[in-house]
């Protein structure tokens, strides 16, 4: 009996030290990564490690809920909103509130030290306890939680449904967009297009370029990049291959001297006409 308990304890200790360290690492990564998407993925890592800790704390139901609700639903909602809000959402390093960063570091560290120190003083040598009895008296952890939710906390459970409905309605109302103008018909769209600078469709990205990825601008006949061919989010992104490597273009065009000459002549003509 004691031997199995000791084995359980060392197993739990291993899980605690590994998953706890990974959870703290994930939290630090979330704090210090510049891009919000990386922050979200680091937070997902922290949450999965917390789920493993819940399971080792004999709360298997909460561990599963943590994986499904937190990492599955909430973090994916975060990523979805990040995609909506846009790619240029990385933090700039300019302080808009002067001198906010130093006090933030000071108070953050002080808060952490105080919290850990006080908790260590107030709760030292608390027994780990065991949920074995509570988990088995109704036949399992899930049954035990269900009994509590549907008997003693049934009112809180009902109120929770009102909260969820209110939240869903609030989100719908907040993100709802009124149409102030009637929807444009196909005729109006077509007329607007012919009045605009581009009657023809925009060139697709990657035309005549070395790669056909969406972040590679199309090349004009003289080898320069056609900016309009990039989708707007790609043009905003720093990492897009906005700069066209002139040497690469030359390399590609080398075998087609005649074609290039013809194209040059053609562009000279047309550009003269346009201007």
């Amino acid at each position, binding site marked *: 009996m004691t031997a199995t308990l000791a084995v359980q*304890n060392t197993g739990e200790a291993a899980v605690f030290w590994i998953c706890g360290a990974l959870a703290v690492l994930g939290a630090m990564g979330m704090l210090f990564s510049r891009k919000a998407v990386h922050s979200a993925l680091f937070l997902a890592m922290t949450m999965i490690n917390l789920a493993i800790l819940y399971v080792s704390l004999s709360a298997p139901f909460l561990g599963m809920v943590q994986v499904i609700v937190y990492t599955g639903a909430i973090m994916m*909602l975060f990523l979805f909103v990040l995609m909506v809000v846009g790619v240029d959402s990385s933090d700039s390093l300019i302080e808009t509130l002067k001198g906010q960063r130093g006090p933030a570091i000071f108070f953050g560290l002080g808060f952490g030290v105080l919290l850990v120190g006080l908790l260590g003083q107030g709760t030292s040598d608390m027994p780990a306890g065991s949920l074995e009895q509570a988990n088995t008296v109704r036949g399992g*952890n899930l049954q035990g939680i269900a009994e509590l939710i549907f008997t003693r906390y049934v009112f809180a459970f009902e109120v929770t449904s009102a909260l969820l409905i209110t939240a869903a309605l609030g989100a719908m109302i907040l993100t709802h967009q009124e149409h102030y103008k009637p929807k444009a018909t196909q005729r109006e769209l077509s007329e607007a297009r012919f009045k605009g600078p581009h009657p023809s469709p925009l060139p697709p990205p990657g035309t005549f370029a070395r790669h056909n990825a969406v972040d590679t601008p199309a090349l004009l006949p003289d080898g320069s990049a056609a900016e309009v061919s990039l989708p707007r989010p790609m043009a905003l992104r720093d990492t897009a291959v906005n700069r066209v490597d002139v040497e690469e273009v030359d390399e590609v065009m080398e075998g087609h001297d005649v074609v290039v000459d013809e194209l040059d002549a053609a562009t000279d003509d047309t550009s003269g006409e346009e201007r």
Partner: protein
Amino acid sequence: MTTDHYIALAAILFSLGAFGMLFRRNAIVVFMCVELMLNASNLAFVAFARMHGNLEGQVFAFFTMVVAAAEVVVGLAIIVVIFRTRRSASVDEPSLLRF
């Protein structure tokens, strides 16, 4: 493993979240820090539940998760609306209420 270990871990995660709320300015990352703090309190709930040997702490952690889900939905909707009107997700931009 005593309860102290878990409480210390929860305290560390909570203060990291609080620190992030002061430190970061992207509204979405600030929201993630709130989530981290809620998760830390959940961990403390579950650890205390095992210490006391009953399941009430786990029920409370469950309710915390529900409230966190509702809070995230409304908060992210507000962020989307702010981004639509201001084209920015920085928490320093909406300063109309500043005196």
